[in-house]
């Protein structure tokens, strides 16, 4: 764990290995999750915001109440707590239902063809992995999940779509995600999840947090509609 300067009121806690050969994995995600909990408890009222991401936690503090030295000192002292919490695992496991089909996943058949797989095989592979939530950003409630099986990894579209429907389940490289709201987007669409991933009127507004794990479960058209899914 390293502490780095990011700005007048921001310190980055980094868990990335210098010159690491592999991208950050579930271990880093668990460290980030543990660090977020520990930093919240340690800084209390001095904390303004936390941004967990792949292998780092950005800590934004109130520089009118405290200073860089105090924050770094208090964060440094958390190393043991974070390691202990990381060893204990911690993240929740969440299942999300997905209706995989050409009518909900405009790129499903093309992705299968380009991967030299059947549509059923693509679905099986997408459901077989337990994904880690690495980051939340881009749009409210947009969770980056990784890593998809390399056989169904697919580059972003050259021309992003103007309108991706809410709930769209998509792949970009070795990442997968559920679009929490209608938005433009360049990921490959393979299905739709009827469960709301971001709802300002719910508490908590999101069913997942960074460091949790997610597994997708295939459902049929009827179940999709029963669960409140909408066909475009």
């Amino acid at each position, binding site marked *: 764990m390293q502490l780095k300067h990011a*700005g*007048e009121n921001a310190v980055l806690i980094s868990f990335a290995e210098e010159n690491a050969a592999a991208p950050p994995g579930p271990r880093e995600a668990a460290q980030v999750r543990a660090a977020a909990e520990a930093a919240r408890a340690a800084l209390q009222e001095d904390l303004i915001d936390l*941004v967990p991401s*792949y292998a780092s936690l950005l800590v934004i503090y109130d520089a009118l109440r405290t200073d860089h030295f105090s924050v770094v000192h208090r964060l440094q002292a958390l190393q043991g707590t974070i390691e202990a919490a990381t060893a204990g695992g911690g993240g929740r496991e969440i299942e999300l239902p997905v209706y995989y089909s050409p009518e909900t996943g405009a790129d499903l058949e093309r992705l299968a063809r380009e991967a030299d797989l059947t549509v059923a095989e693509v679905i099986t592979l997408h459901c077989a992995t337990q994904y880690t939530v690495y980051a939340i*950003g881009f749009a*409210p409630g947009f969770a*980056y999940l990784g890593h998809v099986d390399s056989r169904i990894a697919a580059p972003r579209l050259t021309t992003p779509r103007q309108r991706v429907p809410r709930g769209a389940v998509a792949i970009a490289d070795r990442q997968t995600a559920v679009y929490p709201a209608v938005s433009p987007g360049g990921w490959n669409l393979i299905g739709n999840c009827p469960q709301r991933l971001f709802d300002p009127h719910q508490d908590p507004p999101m069913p997942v947090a960074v460091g949790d794990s997610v597994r997708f479960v295939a459902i049929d058209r009827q179940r999709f509609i029963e669960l409140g899914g909408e066909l475009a």
Partner: protein
Amino acid sequence: MSLCVRQPGLLSLLQDRGRFGQHHLGLTTGGPMDLEAFLLCQRLLGNDPNCTLIECSFGGLELDVETDTLLCVTGAEAPLLINGQPRDLWTSHRVQGGDRVQLGHAEHGCRNYIGVVDGFAVSPQFGSTATVLREGLGGLRGEKLAPGDVLPCRPDTQRRRLQLPATERPHYGAQLTVRVVPGYQQAHFPRLQQRRFYSSPWTVSQRADRMGYRLEGPPIKGDITGIVSEGICLGAIQIPADGQPIVLLNDRQTIGGYPKLGAALSVDAARMSQLRPGATVHFAAISPHAAHNVLHLQHWRMRHIPLQSPPEE
């Protein structure tokens, strides 16, 4: 008991101090781009610093007053008319039902703050009324103000009128030095490239908005073009592959994967947001301790500059 929007101008948004503590959901802060002008507007009205005001970018706002209250405009040097009579900025004015308020186009600076006693009463979302268009959150419907919008506010005839002395008012020019706390990724930029960054004049491009200000100048090249996405703070200076810096501001995305040279001081990011395309920016590096001193002095000043009673109207 309200103000009614006749003309919103190009971009008028309701803003409180900002939406804090929600970055883990991917929500940005929003809030006033020029915190100094925003906080002084609150003081001139006797308000709590988190009241909801209008941020009007590039002028052109017209309001119909339907309630007795004080009204104050701070920020860019734009002509203010109340019932056709020119009125001072940085001054609270008594207004009453039937009055018309017109804010023209700015000669210097580009953002104004328009407030009334205790601000506008709108419901917060995620703890804040700050409008962020990209997220569709805050304000009246997560949108910019439109003709016919009704902004509820309470009546007041008690508060004292106040004025910021002319000598204390900021002047928004077309040149600015932005102080920067260098960040750890600076190591990815060779010494020569760092020199180039800190010694070159930068021009504010057309792509300058509430998300960030993109600058034009000699390209800065680092030894990496991308990093694993990480959190971004206010003022962070990203260098994308084309070498043209972007200073990230209130509506920035919360995570990003471009390398960063450091972060602008919040005080200077606020001043920068008054610059228009074509203005010139220089950067100067300072230590985090010096940055904290600047921050404390600025906030002390904003809380304690003596205000005066304005002449009778």
